[in-house]
């Protein structure tokens, strides 16, 4: 699975995800990627793209949960994403990338690794696989 999330200077947000799914999956199997609110989501607060075991991400409505924790509990992007990845889905199953309307970036995962990269206007940038 691959994904990208972005926010511009006006706070406009978007998310995109694309995948081949799981090795040896059944023909006709749908994963989390095309399910709005599971593997991919964006609203006026944040944009999220998830990866990992699709069935766990769908059950956990992962991407929407991050946005909902911000919307209804007033959490920051980092707090919301950390709670969902750390507490709401089985270990070893999920990673996600997310940006907020205020330009925050977070890339938590509970698997061994996640291929990821990010950059912000204030000059921070990162390319990583493991913790």
């Amino acid at each position: 699975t691959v994904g990208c999330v972005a926010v511009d200077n006006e706070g406009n947000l978007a998310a995109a995800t694309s995948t081949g799914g799981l090795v040896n999956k059944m023909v006709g199997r749908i994963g989390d990627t095309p399910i709005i609110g599971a593997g991919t989501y964006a609203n006026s607060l944040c944009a999220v793209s998830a990866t990992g075991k699709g069935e766990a991400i769908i059950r956990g409505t992962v991407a929407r949960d991050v946005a909902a924790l911000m919307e209804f509990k007033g959490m920051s992007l980092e707090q919301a994403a950390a709670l969902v990845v750390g507490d709401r889905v089985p270990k070893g199953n999920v990673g996600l990338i997310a940006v907020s309307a205020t330009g925050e970036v977070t890339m938590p995962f509970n698997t061994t690794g996640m291929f990821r990269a990010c950059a912000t206007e204030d000059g921070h940038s990162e390319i990583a696989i493991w913790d």
Partner: protein
Amino acid sequence: MGWAIALHGGAGDIPLSLPPERRLPREACLRHCLQVGVHALKSKKSPLDVVELVVQELENNPNFNAGRGSVLTTNGTVEMEACIVDGKTMRCGAVSGLKTVVNPIYLARLVMEKTPHIYLGFEGAEAFAREQGVETVDASHFITPENVERLKQAREANRVQIDYNAQPVQKDMKREELIPDGDSQIG
């Protein structure tokens, strides 16, 4: 506030021992895609255009599980899916079950912009792609030797489990085997 961008190439059981010949091309692709995305943001492209552009780059790289390089179904075929969401308008586009479309994310965007729907799948999505004149290729274009090998290993893993289980095994995702070549293609 300032602009920001993040991208991923999948999460899973990626062992620390991943050999350089597998790690370096992936890191190089992440670096390239990040540069493409940052340049697009600095050029004032909309976040929607930026995320589509970056995901297309990632789909075209055979090292990642999307587009060319997609992992294979149990029948050895490719079924790709993609999704795009615009936070400003909550418009969405999603596709599943694609076999011939070079960039699934582009078709997802067309679903969002040119149909009254959010999600098209399988033959309907393929027919829409042809109607829209979207670039398509023979399904074999997406199948890489690495993923043929991965499928073989995954099948063998399943066969071993079935041999040990009198009952037909319900694949236990928690026992997902770490594919020996290092990239567990779980996502």
